[in-house]
């Protein structure tokens, strides 16, 4: 097709410049496409984009809100990054986050008032991570024991988790529901001792936990023997098997850690800004946005942090657009477009495209590099 005019050859290892340039160009391309679309539909792109920047970074309060939105995305981003790195297609971050919130709120409510913060806070937060890991296990165990494709099971578990969470607060009088909210069902607040302190407007200490988890994940994958073996499995399960790596155990471990990270996102929301399991504030697609974050960060857990801030900024800018009569869905559209360009950009990281074939047939030499 294009082979007559363009020559494609595998790059082998791409330079840092290319791996940085491609994600940045992906964002710019999505913004350009968005601008064209806004202009066609009769909106002024300049006004929209300046409004978005102002809403996301214009004041110390808006910077704080952007970081508040970024915190769970760092964790769902790490969850997707470590799983995808190993070709474990956990697209259930959404459900694992929600179950994390259910577990965290459940722990807080069970502890009740009078528990010291030194006990309550770690218990609430860790229970959420355990919840996320258990929800991931529902897909991980069949995958490892029976070879069941995890794409569909993780996906379906998202909807089961959503309905379960809604049932606990909106559909029943469970312990998760605030008994004082008779007219409009709400989550029951967890004790103050289980809450993360705020330090910058509404921003709480959860962001430090999220950043620490991202760094820990980077160290684990990049600097330990365990992480090395995970990367070998991601490159080639056959090679890993020949090298004597216990592939099923690696898959299980990564899957559960991925679920725990997503579950932690849920518990940080409960222990942080929400203070309760509030179904309406949790059903925001944070798990799916985490997949965008991971892809744009090229599955690097540390790069997830700045990318999550960018996506958090976009999420925060959405509602502000309504004040200038622009649909908040602009933001979802832009995020989708960013992901489309980012995933397409992987081609340009893996391959070099030239106008004519090089003098020496390097393509043949580097054949196996993809």
């Amino acid at each position, binding site marked *: 097709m294009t082979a007559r005019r363009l020559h494609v050859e595998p790059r082998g290892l791409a330079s840092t410049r290319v791996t940085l340039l491609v994600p940045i160009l992906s964002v710019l391309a999505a913004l350009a496409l968005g601008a064209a679309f806004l202009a066609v539909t009769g909106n002024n792109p300049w006004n929209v984009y300046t409004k978005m920047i102002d809403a996301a970074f214009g004041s110390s309060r808006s910077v704080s809100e952007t970081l508040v939105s970024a915190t769970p995305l760092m964790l769902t981003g790490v969850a997707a990054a470590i799983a995808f790195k190993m070709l474990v297609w956990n697209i259930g971050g959404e459900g694992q986050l929600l179950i994390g919130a259910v577990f965290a709120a459940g722990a807080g409510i069970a502890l009740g008032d009078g528990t010291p913060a030194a006990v309550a806070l770690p218990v609430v937060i860790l229970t959420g991570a355990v919840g996320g890991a258990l929800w991931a296990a529902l897909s991980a165990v069949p995958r490892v024991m029976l070879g*069941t494709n995890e794409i569909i099971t993780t996906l*379906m578990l998202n909807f089961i988790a959503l*309905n379960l969470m809604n049932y606990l607060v*909106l559909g*029943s009088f469970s312990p998760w529901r605030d008994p004082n909210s008779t007219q409009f069902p709400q989550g029951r607040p967890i004790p103050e001792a289980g809450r993360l302190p705020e330090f910058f407007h509404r921003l709480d200490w959860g962001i430090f936990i999220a950043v620490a988890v991202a760094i820990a994940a980077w160290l684990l994958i990049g600097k330990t023997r365990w992480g090395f073996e995970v990367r070998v499995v991601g490159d080639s399960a056959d090679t890993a098997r020949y090298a004597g790596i216990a592939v099923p155990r690696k898959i299980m471990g990564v899957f559960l850690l991925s679920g725990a990270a997503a579950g932690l996102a849920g518990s940080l929301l409960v222990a942080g800004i929400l203070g309760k399991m509030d179904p309406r504030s949790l059903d925001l697609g944070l798990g799916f946005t985490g997949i965008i974050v991971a892809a744009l960060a090229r599955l690097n857990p540390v790069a997830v942090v700045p990318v999550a801030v960018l996506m958090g900024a976009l999420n925060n800018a959405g509602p502000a657009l309504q004040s200038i009569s622009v649909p908040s869905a602009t933001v*979802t559209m832009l995020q*989708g477009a960013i992901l489309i360009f980012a*995933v397409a950009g992987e*081609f340009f990281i893996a391959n070099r495209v030239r106008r004519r074939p090089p003098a020496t047939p390097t393509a043949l030499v580097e054949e196996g590099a*993809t």
Partner: protein
Amino acid sequence: MNESTFVLTAFAAIGLGTPIVFATLGEIITERAGVLNLGVQGMMLVGAVSGFWATFKTGNLLLGVVAAMIAGAVLSVIHAFSSITLRVSQIVSGIALTLFGTGLANFIGRTGTPALVGQPSRVTFEPLLTSGIADWPVVGPLVFGHDALVYVSWLVIAAASYYLFHTKMGLTLRAVGEDPASADAAGVEVARVRYVHVMVGGALAGLGGAYFSLALVPSWQDDPIGAAGWIAIALVILASWRPWRALLAAYLFGAAGRLNFTFQTLGVSVPANLLAMIPFILAIIAMIVLTSGKRARLLGAPAALGIPYAREQR
């Protein structure tokens, strides 16, 4: 007789199942070519809004259907380009398509004045027959009481089944999904076959979306299709990549969607949220029981599903 719980439930199941029939069939055709497209939800939403918009502007249902199919097909080209030409991750590309399509549909529904959102439909698909044979007991409503698109869905399922298993082009399609290298060696243009069938799948997903906005929901709302696109992806597996089974599976899920109401009429109280889980729980159980390990091949999963094909790597 026609007012019995069974007839009412079955009739509703066919109505609620029809958009999923179209979308599931579209994904079956796409996957038969060896391409996994997780963008069904996005393509359905864009189809739904395009169909609603075109019919709202023109008052013509046929134009709405055509607009929805074109919109779905155009969106699917993005996925085709990523997964066939660029050969990047089909899973992430499909999710990208869903996110983009969801944003695009809600944007179109809310931009301009007056915005589409909240607007009632000017025309909707209505049952073709309302008396005569449609009044016969049981078979009257269940066979003769539907709108045109339900009959179209039956025709399309029959045509797709014939195409897949009884034509040379269908054989070529299955060869491309099973063993693209051999198909290529036999002179088949693998990329072209894949592009065409991804686009057919997109058009059918768009049509399924339009069934929501032109038949089931008589006004435009944000996200009018629920999780139908994701259910369709699960049903492809339950239907083991076969069109007639897709029809059956979609109706079963339509019935599950109706169960809440049915239980109420029977005086049984089951929480709506728990009922809403049933389709997804069934899909997971079916996944585990039917498709684990080697059984997936026996079921008919295309061997090259999700694997990009590059001629150099032969």
